């Protein structure tokens, strides 16, 4: 179980919520469970081949999962995942 924080641009796809508690023992499992619960999110996180989109960054605590074990990164109870999108406004 981890808490995943969804950024403003994607909140319309999760009924306007900000933080979601999602089951899973790895980052990848949490993401799978997330898009299973909220199918409209899928295309925003994964490409057609089921890979993470390169403009979506996931941080476990303060660290990019790419600097850990990617989507295989194991989770501990109460871990916090941040989903960081590209935004360009100015």
């Amino acid at each position, binding site marked *: 179980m981890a808490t995943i924080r969804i*950024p*403003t*641009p994607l909140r*319309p*796809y999760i009924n306007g919520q*900000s933080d979601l508690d999602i089951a899973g023992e790895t980052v990848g499992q949490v993401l799978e469970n997330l898009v299973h619960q909220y199918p*409209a999110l899928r295309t*925003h996180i994964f490409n057609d081949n089921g890979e993470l*989109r*390169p*403009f979506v*960054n996931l*941080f476990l605590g*303060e*660290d*990019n999962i*790419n*600097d850990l074990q990617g989507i295989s990164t194991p989770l501990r109870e109460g871990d916090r995942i*941040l989903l*960081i*999108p*590209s*935004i*360009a*406004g*100015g």
Partner: protein
Amino acid sequence: MLPTLSHEEILRYSRHLLIPEVGLEGQRKLKAASILVIGTGGLGSPVSLYLAAAGVGHIGLVDYDVVDESNLQRQVIHGTAAIGELKVESARRRMLDLNPGIEVEVYNEPFTSQNAMRIAADYDVIIDGTDNFPTRYLSNDVCVLLGKPNVYGSIFRFEGQASVFDARRGPCYRCLFPEPPPPGMVPSCAEGGVLGVLPGTIGTIQATEALKLILGIGESLIGRLLLYNALDMTFDFVNLKKNPKCKICSAEPEITELIDYEAFCGVPGHDHDEGSAGKEWDITASELAERLKNGIPLRLIDVREPHELEISRIPGAQLIPLGQLAGRLSELDSAEDIVLFCKAGTRSARALEVLLSAGFRKVKNLKGGINAWAREVDPSLPIY
């Protein structure tokens, strides 16, 4: 050799001179410094005002736009009297009023691969206050190639990001975002809106970081990304590392000169919400009005969000927000003539692509959206 300060300058900057971390030497560093601000909009406004007030001796402003009434909710460097005026001229006037002792150089041109290296070359620090992906990648690449720090800030609705990208000492923008999002996947402020005070928060953070870089004090945002959410009132920091495979700042870069950034991002290098789906698929407001007057049957679909109906609406239109369209195709009949519209034509152009890829052919995009309808057909409607 740092420039000296006059008695007037000593008085003006006395609150800086009292801080040991700035002091007389720091203020002289600021006077000697040059900072380029790309974009004189939401972020560029507070950045430019505070850099001018702080006594940064040479400030460059790049923008080619004119002040529009819809800018003034957040672009606080411009005033109502400046509507229609070049943004760089309006900003320069305000900055020199605030501090006549500085120099403001203006570049009334888009920041492009052709002029970016030339413009940026003379500046110590570059501040990215642009409003679109192509110019963000361009600013980053210019800074990496010239070996300059890029003070990054970006905003959307209630959410802001800030960092300092300096490839000599840490990651660059491409390390974090190797590729831009597909066109249309991330809405811009012109489409999605932005809380007016948000660029104030992020812009002042950018100005702070730029001043710290010049002064050589404190812990900069190099290697860290700040995430601010005004709605939740949260500040989160995450660590950024250099990507060993980064296409521009790694040991063996693929990119060694500026590229075509609009082609790379698939979107134009500005955030003007004026959507067209291409000549073949557009219908003008006047043409649509003519068809409706002549009683030609057609299905009018409004792809905006429900709260936008309170601002303006076209009678007889059915609301299907863009985000729901793909899931509600069964409500539409491909044998009918369909006209899609939104605020200004950007979202409806995207909606048109959704319908085309689902096999619809008798479908048109209202060019310029309901705002064009308000201008050309029904002046009783407000433009937003």
